């Protein structure tokens, strides 16, 4: 992304070359860094998934041994969550939050840069862990002890990488909270902020609250591994299930960290292409806030088969079902936004629409899993794999893809190739469903998760899923091509290529000046700020 070659209105010159990217304090540069890092990790982690699906194409062990297979499933999860999804949303936050609130930059621009550059350090540790004796961590992304205690040096590298990524997230979240609370242009009250900014404010609170808990629990893993502690060892008075409680206290808010910004992106795209205001802005804000608060009260729904007392199972079942209510409100509001709009179907809109439909399917399978007796049959089966891929790929990743198409014209000044975008969308949406819908059935008929080989009655759906996966993977290369092509050139986007867009960034040039809103924009009721 070569902003130096474009207009900038300050007397300071923007340097070119690696030093610029290493030392930048500019939210646009840092957003770009996060987005490229995320795309790279997405392709790497996706390739690991393709290796998994290649082995699972047929019963029997054809290419991989179980030890390496377990490394693949573990690292696919860790790299996608911490390397692809989270950094992508932070990239959006960096680019868009200051622009949408009329701020010149983030509250702590240098800290912002450090938050980014901690991630490649963590990625170094994670990726090189494949090459140490024993191979990469292979106990699942959830790292349950005692299995996690048995592993080799890669397991420690992963713990340290998690510490680095946690630090990055916590500092980034502090930055975002402070920016949103303190740097809004005068007149932009909280209830006049664009909905995307709200989702990031709440996500940042979740990050600041739960990433430290992850840090404490992986530290306990580390000391159990090397310093003789007995946190998770029954003989010493500890309990492996205690890890699960602490981990999922982080883990459940974590999945909302990965979906709330997606809600924000979709809530921005749909009104744009429906040419209608977002329906029920106030209830959308309250819904996101209630989802966030409730997310602290549901963690043990990941643990229904660990032997919780009945009272515990009942409490967590109720709290989990309760989250369906505000989530449902959001879906209804999106449909109401579209209702009697003047709808058009550019690529961002297609991704947003697919997200709404497919995320809802993921939500329903989540509701099925919330019901304890049903969960007893489905926990740790492919039904769960189907559920979280619907909410994380169709939910989070498709919003990211849609958001990239939506804002690429603003970031680069060029329109992306609409035809290629549409092809990418249809390939992705269809291949996604071919890959993951059969997994609901696999879970129902009894296929466990995290197995490299399976009984023949699971063979047909596995073959189908593997075919879908390869098409899905290949389609993302088309995305890479389309993005690069757009950066290098395309039809001039102009300030506002989307006639229905209403937020502040569309009042700036495309691309915006390197330092924008150095003077806070004056907000009148006529100025678009997301509420038109």
């Amino acid at each position, binding site marked *: 992304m070569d902003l130096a070659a474009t207009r900038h209105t300050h007397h300071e010159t923007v340097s070119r070359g690696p030093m610029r990217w290493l030392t930048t304090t500019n939210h646009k540069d840092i957003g770009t860094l996060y987005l490229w890092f995320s795309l790279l990790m997405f392709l790497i982690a996706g390739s690991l998934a393709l290796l998994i699906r290649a082995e699972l194409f047929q019963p029997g062990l054809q290419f991989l041994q*179980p030890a390496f297979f*377990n490394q693949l499933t573990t690292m696919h999860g860790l790299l996608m969550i911490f390397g692809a999804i989270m950094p992508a949303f932070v990239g959006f936050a960096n680019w868009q939050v200051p622009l949408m609130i009329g701020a010149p930059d983030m509250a702590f621009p240098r800290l912002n840069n450090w938050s980014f550059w901690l991630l490649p350090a963590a990625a170094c540790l994670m990726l090189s862990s494949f090459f140490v004796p024993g191979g990469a961590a292979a106990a699942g992304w959830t790292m349950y002890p005692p299995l996690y205690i048995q592993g080799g040096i890669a397991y420690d590298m992963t713990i340290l990488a998690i510490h680095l990524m946690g630090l990055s997230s916590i500092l980034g979240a502090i930055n975002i909270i402070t920016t949103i609370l303190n740097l809004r242009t005068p007149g932009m009250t909280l209830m006049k902020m664009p909905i995307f900014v709200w989702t990031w404010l709440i996500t940042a609170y979740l990050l600041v609250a739960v990433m430290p808990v992850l840090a404490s629990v992986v530290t306990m893993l580390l000391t159990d591994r090397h310093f003789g502690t007995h946190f998770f060892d029954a003989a010493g008075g500890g*309990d492996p299930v205690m890890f699960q409680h602490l981990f999922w206290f982080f883990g459940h808010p974590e999945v909302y960290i990965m979906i709330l910004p997606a809600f924000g992106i979709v809530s921005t795209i749909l009104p744009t292409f429906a040419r209608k205001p977002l329906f029920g802005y106030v209830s959308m804000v309250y819904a996101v806030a209630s989802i966030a608060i409730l997310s602290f009260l549901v963690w043990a729904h990941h643990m229904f088969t660990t032997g919780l007392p009945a009272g515990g199972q009942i409490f967590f*079942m109720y709290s989990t079902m309760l989250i369906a209510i505000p989530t*449902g409100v959001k879906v209804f509001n999106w449909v109401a936004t579209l209702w*009697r709009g003047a*709808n058009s179907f550019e690529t961002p809109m297609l991704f947003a629409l697919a997200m709404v439909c497919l995320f809802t399917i993921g939500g329903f399978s989540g509701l099925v899993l919330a019901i304890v*007796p049903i969960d007893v049959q489905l*926990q740790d089966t492919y039904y769960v794999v189907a559920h979280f891929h619907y909410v994380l790929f169709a939910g989070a990743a498709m919003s990211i893809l849609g958001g990239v198409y939506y804002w690429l014209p603003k970031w680069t000044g060029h329109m992306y190739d609409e035809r290629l975008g549409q092809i990418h969308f249809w390939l992705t949406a269809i291949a996604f469903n071919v890959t993951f819908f059969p997994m609901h059935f696999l879970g129902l008929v009894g296929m*466990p998760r995290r197995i490299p080989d399976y009984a023949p009655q699971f063979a047909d759906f596995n073959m189908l899923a593997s075919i879908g996966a390869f098409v899905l993977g290949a389609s993302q290369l088309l995305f890479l091509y389309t993005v690069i092509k757009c950066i290098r050139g395309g039809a001039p986007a102009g300030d506002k290529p989307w006639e229905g867009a209403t937020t502040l960034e569309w009042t700036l040039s495309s691309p915006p000046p390197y330092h924008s809103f150095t003077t806070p924009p004056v907000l009148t009721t006529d100025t678009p700020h997301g509420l038109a």
Partner: protein
Amino acid sequence: MSRGMPFVAVAIVLAPGGALAELGFNLPPPATGIAREIYDLHTLVLWICVGIFAVVFLPMFYTLWRHRKAKGHVAASFRDNTRLEVLWTIVPALILVGMAWPATNLILAMKNVGDSDLTIKVTGRQWQWEYEYLDDGLRLVSTLATPRREIDGGNPRSAHYLLEVDRPLVVPTNRKVRLVVTATDVIHSWWIPAFGIKQDAIPGFIKEAWFRVEAPGTYRGQCVELCGIGHAFMPIVVEALPPEKFAAWKNEQMTATKNATAAAQTAANATLSLTELTTRGEQVYNANCAACHQPTGLGIPGAFPALDGSAIVTGPVAAHLDRIFNGKPGTAMTAFGKLKLLSDLDIAAVVTFERNSWHNHVTAPDNLVQPAEVAALPR
């Protein structure tokens, strides 16, 4: 979209769950009352979800098609409707209560382990299950029976590929069987889909569950919590017999155990030749050790040590015996002797085998271990 498509879709959606189950789309046919209730609850929840999906997305697709910019439609401008929003908050809440009520009752039923007819202790370990009938101490260890060469390709798959064991768990029909579940090393999980029972096996803790099978038959399940490289290879097979047949089986097993113990005692005092020990030792090795240490004895570097050229295997016998008998705490190396997984004879055999295999050629007399030496180890 052709006009016939909606009808096809509806037909697919309304196809009987039972038929779908046979096609491999749904939970398996229930073999217990609890499994049946779970099946029905799932059907209820599924149809509610399908219904809500239709109610929400049919209007969405309708408006996307009907109110298009390309057709010149002008957007409406409404941005809220309080009555509607209250309605679509309250109605889903009521639907959820409707689902939660039967679910709560079922949870309480599933947790009620009282008044059981027999209790079986289930122990998971890497990578097999052990069962102990607590009333009379009958123990059996259940290991995957599918041969390795089938898994690694080449041979045709057996009828119950990956779901067959050498010794199944045997239970009576129509009796409440209480399970006390634990593990010795890492977390495993015991699951029979047809029974509707899944219980994590937590090392050092006891977790309880129960089932009551209605019809005689063979029921299969798998370990369902990632437990290392053998996770996919530790199935569960339950044979349900009518109570009289179960009693008969039990007696037969108790007698066989008594005889086996006696035989082991005799063998323990016997002196075997090198060939006898290494032949038996190779069988023991392939069944118990090769999964980690590999048939080649080369192990997996960084994960499982090589035995070929190992200092412990070629060094003093005492250390070698100790490693196999007592295991190595904190690793996957199980205490094969202390946990009574291998008899004295088998341990003597496998030690002898390892000391004389691959590139290991330990000089006599340290290349041969008799069962009596193993019997002398502190228990």
